[in-house]
């Protein structure tokens, strides 16, 4: 399940290449070659039709957002972003996404470690449960969390309609990212190096700090980037759980939807263009991290 979303060919393909230390994009396999063209007429036709569909579905609509955002000029653009309510939503979203990403970096790495290096009853069940947040429809995810942390909570917790609800929902939907990027790297990690270090007298803490964590760092960074960008753009799981209270629990996606529902598409597009820019930065950053690692390995 997760490999499809994260692009980790390591667990779908029988033998990962030896240089593969981090999940990298399946498509980036071939190094940048001189642009040559080996298309046959039939393949060219296929590419043409596929590109028309892709343009109609993805490219033109995304360009339309940027064009619409720019229609009112810079002043209108910044006025949207400067309004108090929007700014509060941006601050809340970025703040909670950052907190959740930090939690994921720590807990996600621990879970990946437990899944790879530990053996206990029920481990394979844990492995399947990790993917549940990816498979579950987001609105169901919200309802699911509401049943434990909402008004009828068996724990007596009343987190619905608070900032904690936002954090909870984001933590739920981003749980698998770091686990699933770190796990394959940890599996591939050479035990020889650790044993060599141990035989030379390195203590456990030293091995962890000097050998294991540096090899995991690119995978953790990649997972953190994915988890942050997902958290920034989350919508469905927050609808029922957070209550969408302006200035308190309203996130950026909800703000965009409010603009759309009020027919204010220009403001919606302005805010959406910022979210698109964040998504693009994350994609580029991931590409750079992964190519650096590929060069090193």
């Amino acid at each position: 399940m997760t490999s499809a979303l994260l692009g980790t060919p390591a667990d779908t393909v029988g033998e990962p290449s030896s240089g593969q230390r981090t999940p990298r994009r399946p498509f980036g396999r071939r190094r940048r070659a001189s642009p040559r063209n080996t298309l046959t007429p039939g393949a060219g036709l296929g590419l043409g039709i596929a590109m028309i569909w892709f343009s109609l579905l993805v490219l033109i609509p995304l360009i339309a957002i940027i064009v619409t955002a720019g229609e009112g000029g810079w002043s209108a653009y910044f006025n949207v972003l400067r309004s108090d309510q929007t700014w509060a939503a941006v601050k809340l979203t970025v703040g909670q996404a950052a907190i959740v990403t930090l939690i994921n970096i720590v807990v996600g790495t621990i879970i990946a470690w437990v899944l790879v290096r530990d053996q206990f009853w029920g481990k394979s069940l844990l492995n399947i449960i990790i993917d549940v947040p990816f498979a579950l429809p987001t609105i169901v995810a919200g309802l699911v969390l509401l049943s434990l942390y909402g008004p009828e909570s068996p724990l007596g917790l009343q987190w619905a309609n608070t900032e904690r609800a936002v954090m909870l929902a984001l933590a739920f939907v981003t749980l698998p990212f770091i686990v699933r990027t770190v796990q394959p790297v940890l599996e591939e990690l050479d035990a020889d190096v650790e044993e060599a270090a141990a035989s030379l007298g390195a203590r456990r803490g030293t091995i962890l700090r000097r050998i294991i964590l540096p090899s995991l760092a690119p995978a953790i960074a990649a997972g953190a980037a994915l988890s942050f960008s997902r958290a920034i753009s989350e919508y469905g799981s927050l609808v029922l759980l957070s209550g969408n209270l302006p200035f308190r629990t309203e996130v950026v996606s909800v703000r965009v939807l409010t603009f759309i529902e009020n027919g204010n598409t220009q403001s919606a597009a302005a805010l959406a263009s910022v979210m698109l820019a964040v998504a693009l930065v994350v994609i580029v950053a991931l590409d750079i991290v992964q190519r650096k690692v590929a060069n090193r390995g």
Partner: protein
Amino acid sequence: MVEVSTPVRWLLRLIAVGYVFFLVAWPVSLVAVRTFEDGTDAFFGIFTDPHTVAALQLTLMVAVWAVVINLVFGVTISLLLVRYEFPGKRVLSALIDLPLSVSPVVVGLALLLVFSGRTGWFGPSIEDAGWKVIYDSPGMIMATCFVALPLIIREVVPVLSEIGDDQEQAARSLGANGRQTFLRITLPSIKWAVIYGVVLSLARSLGEFGAVKVVSGNITGRTQTATLIVEAKYQNFQQASAYSVAFLLAFISIACLIVVAFLRPKHEEA
């Protein structure tokens, strides 16, 4: 391999299991409890409510169309990306991943700006030709296609590049035409990757909420999908039916997950 001491190992195990239990396992199981706490009547009641049945049928229709379109598109693009060289290939393969990082609400807005019947770029002319995209099923299918676009490609591409094209070239040199080569050689070897991709896309398509909410207009009985009806029922204080539909959706998506989890290792050993 570095061994951690027993107390540390137990601590890490406890953190991992505890976190997942409180965040995922317990809440998800509570939905099943809530659905069936008053017997099975509430759950089977959803199949007698005409609006809910219409929503379930619509969801299935939209999801099947989206999966079929993404299947054709995904396999075509995967073959092109792995087997051919052409200018702009790197950019295309990066752009294919874009839908995964775009917020569902932004997806909906993007489609609205282009295909809206009143103000969109192409919407009015498409509407003059007799088609309605936004606030109707074509728009919902497009939104679902958008969000699930890369899933099949991401499963198929690694397998295609792993198997290489030796067999395909052998088939060609023995006189097979393109169609025969694809059906007899390529398709059987990527069969499992395609099946995973389809199951994942189906799960994603059935559960799409944000993008569909924007482009559907959420008209009860006409463009309301299963996920939209969960929200509507919950907000109308019909919690029993909200939990029932949610349970059905959760059941289907977890079933998809288990199917993939059990198919994958078996196939890899073979």
